[in-house]
């Protein structure tokens, strides 16, 4: 059976499962809609959190990124997992004991202020909205590559599916579809990884294969990482396992901003409101990271295998003898080759082959059948352009795996994008329908009205996300990375202080949040959109890492302002005391 037929079957089957789950878990009350009724078992919540967290970027792009960055890619591996330790130790159990529905809910109640609630609300919506646009785009791209439908049609299909199960089942529908989506995406990630590991390193466990020896070819018997170090150095790159040009302080700050940002992302935090107890919140954070770690420890292995495979099979080989996957991906424009020295041989070296992304001259091919690029060439001896994203997607083809595996990877990519999109949409919908509409506008709203507003908000949010998925503004890719910086500098400090320091008050929290966000946002906007240059960086910290400084500013401002102003009222002190002990969490009531 052809790849296309298999892909239709796999994608159709998985979508059928998601819709079926949504139908049986449809909800009638707001508690079900916002927090799945608060009865999700820890193991299921762990899987749902893992799927919620791992987006199209984790599934498709991360291994490719590490493949090209080598050691420097570790910032993503540590940054996107280490945050769960903070979440499990500092936030999840206490927020669960607090037992409301959203992050702005906690901020508003703990700091007895609708201003604080509103600031938190705006942050939550901004962070989630920037993030969700990228997911919709991811859905469209997977559709177009594997199902041969236009990107826009792909986005529309994705929108319809997400609206159906998030609108119908709210958090409950999302939770159980995410459990199914985790199963699909992890299977799709592991199968090709295991096969490639067997092929290159002779072991079925990629995590061990990464430190294993090469099984065939001219490097037989040498350690894979040694071979990569040597290949990278020979071709003019930094050695694969060694730190690159980034300053250590910058690496430090980026990793920290990613960790803290992860812990502060509203769509991750609200998953811990869905479990029945504090004990379950602690446990499910462990399961969540365990399930994430299965993919995150496989990714660096996939990255190294892909790097080795690419250099070994393509570099210094005649174009005429290039493997078929090379030519397949050349057709999609994600690989391009310019024969700068007219020798008919592909030279892969450090540096860009030409300026920007490849633009092909229509209908014209070179003497060997290669597509001709119209871009301005660089002086670099490098002749090869490879898009980082193909590393995971092309893996099954490189390893000659059967067609159904390739189809499974497509279904996995879709599962990763859809699960994250639905979690984000729910944050947006619950922030507006619960925090803004019910808590700030209409305190007398009935259960039915609130549910209706929630569903309408999901519809509106889906449309906005879809619009930006179809017409992506150039800045989305840049902004997504900064969602972390903003989450780190806004929520994290005031939630932590709200739990660990009873003295922190309203004035401190509002000033701290504003100071953190304004500083971080201004820094990012200046350097990303207003032409700030690298030599102006504060202490050499890049905009990606500035969330760390924003977070410190938030902590300091909150602390100083709090100690200079009036202590919070008696009942807040009691609230803080009560969230510090687990007993009574089950009795969380609607308020």
């Amino acid at each position, binding site marked *: 059976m052809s790849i296309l037929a298999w892909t239709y079957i796999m994608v159709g089957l998985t979508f059928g499962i998601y819709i079926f789950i949504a139908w049986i878990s449809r909800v009638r009350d707001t508690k079900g809609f916002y927090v799945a009724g608060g009865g999700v078992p820890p193991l299921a919540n762990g899987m749902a959190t893992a799927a919620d967290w791992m987006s199209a970027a984790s599934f498709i792009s991360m291994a490719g990124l*590490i493949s090209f960055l080598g*050691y420097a*890619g*570790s910032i993503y*591996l*540590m940054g996107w*997992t*280490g945050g*769960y*330790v*903070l979440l*499990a*130790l*500092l936030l999840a*159990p206490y927020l669960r004991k607090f037992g409301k529905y959203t992050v702005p809910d906690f901020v508003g109640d703990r700091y007895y202020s609708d201003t604080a609630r509103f600031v938190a609300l705006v942050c939550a919506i901004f962070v989630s909205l920037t993030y969700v646009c990228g997911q919709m785009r991811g859905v469209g791209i997977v559709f177009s590559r594997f199902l041969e439908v236009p990107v826009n049609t792909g986005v529309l299909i994705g929108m319809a599916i997400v609206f159906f199960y998030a609108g119908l089942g709210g958090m409950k529908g999302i939770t159980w579809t995410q459990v199914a989506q985790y199963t699909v995406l992890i299977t799709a990630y592991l199968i090709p990884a295991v096969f490639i590991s067997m092929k290159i390193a002779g072991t079925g466990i990629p*995590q061990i294969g*990464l*430190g*294993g*020896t090469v099984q065939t070819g001219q490097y037989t018997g040498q*350690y*894979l*990482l*040694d071979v990569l170090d040597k290949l990278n150095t020979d071709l003019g790159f930094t050695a694969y*396992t*060694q*730190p690159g040009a980034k300053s*250590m302080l910058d*690496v*430090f700050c980026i*990793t*920290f901003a990613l*960790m803290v940002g992860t812990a502060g992302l509203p769509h991750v935090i609200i998953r811990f409101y869905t479990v029945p*107890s*504090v*004990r379950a919140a*602690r*446990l499910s*954070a*462990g399961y969540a*990271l*365990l399930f994430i*770690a299965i993919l*995150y*420890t496989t990714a*660096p292995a996939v990255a190294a295998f892909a790097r080795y495979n690419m250099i070994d099979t393509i570099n210094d080989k005649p174009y005429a003898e290039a493997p078929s996957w090379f030519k397949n991906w050349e057709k999609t424009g994600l690989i391009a080759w310019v024969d700068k020295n007219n020798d008919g041989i592909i030279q892969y070296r450090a540096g860009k082959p030409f300026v920007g992304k490849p633009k092909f001259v229509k209908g014209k091919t070179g003497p060997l059948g290669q597509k001709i690029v119209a871009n301005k060439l660089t002086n670099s001896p490098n002749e090869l352009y490879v898009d980082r994203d193909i590393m995971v997607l092309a893996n099954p083809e490189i390893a000659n795996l059967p067609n159904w595996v390739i189809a499974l990877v497509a279904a996995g990519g879709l599962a990763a994008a859809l699960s994250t999109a639905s979690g984000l949409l729910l944050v947006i919908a619950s922030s507006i329908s619960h925090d803004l509409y019910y808590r700030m506008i209409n305190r007398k709203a009935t259960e039915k009205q609130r549910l209706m507003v929630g569903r309408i908000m999901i519809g509106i949010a889906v449309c906005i996300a879809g619009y930006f998925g179809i017409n992506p503004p150039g800045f989305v890719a840049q902004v997504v990375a900064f969602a972390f910086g903003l989450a780190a500098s806004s929520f994290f400090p005031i939630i932590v202080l709200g739990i*660990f320091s009873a003295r922190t008050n309203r004035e401190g929290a509002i000033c701290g949040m504003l100071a953190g966000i304004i500083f971080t946002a201004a820094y990012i906007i200046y350097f990303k959109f207003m032409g700030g240059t690298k030599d102006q960086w504060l202490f050499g910290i890049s905009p990606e890492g500035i969330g760390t400084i924003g977070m410190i500013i938030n902590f300091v401002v909150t602390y100083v302002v709090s100690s200079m102003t009036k202590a919070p009222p008696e009942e807040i002190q009691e609230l803080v*005391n009560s969230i*510090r*002990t*687990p*007993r*009574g*969490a*089950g009795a969380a009531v609607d308020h």
Partner: protein
Amino acid sequence: MSKNLQEYWRKNVTFMSFLLAIWAIVSYGCGILFVEPLNAIRIGGFPLGFWFAQQGSIYVFVCLIFIYYAYMQKLDREYDVHE
């Protein structure tokens, strides 16, 4: 807060700080600050610093959360604040 609960909270915070110290040592210490000296040490095909940065730190993170869970289960019962 009663004296008993203060003690419960203090023990919780102490243990938590201990775990966070390990968290910082494996990621920021072994994975970033000392990556070059550690890379001189090899475990099989892995330079040690690289292994910590791309594999080891993640394994340790998972363990830390489960250790905290187990410790708090015990502590909750000891101070009779469990659910």
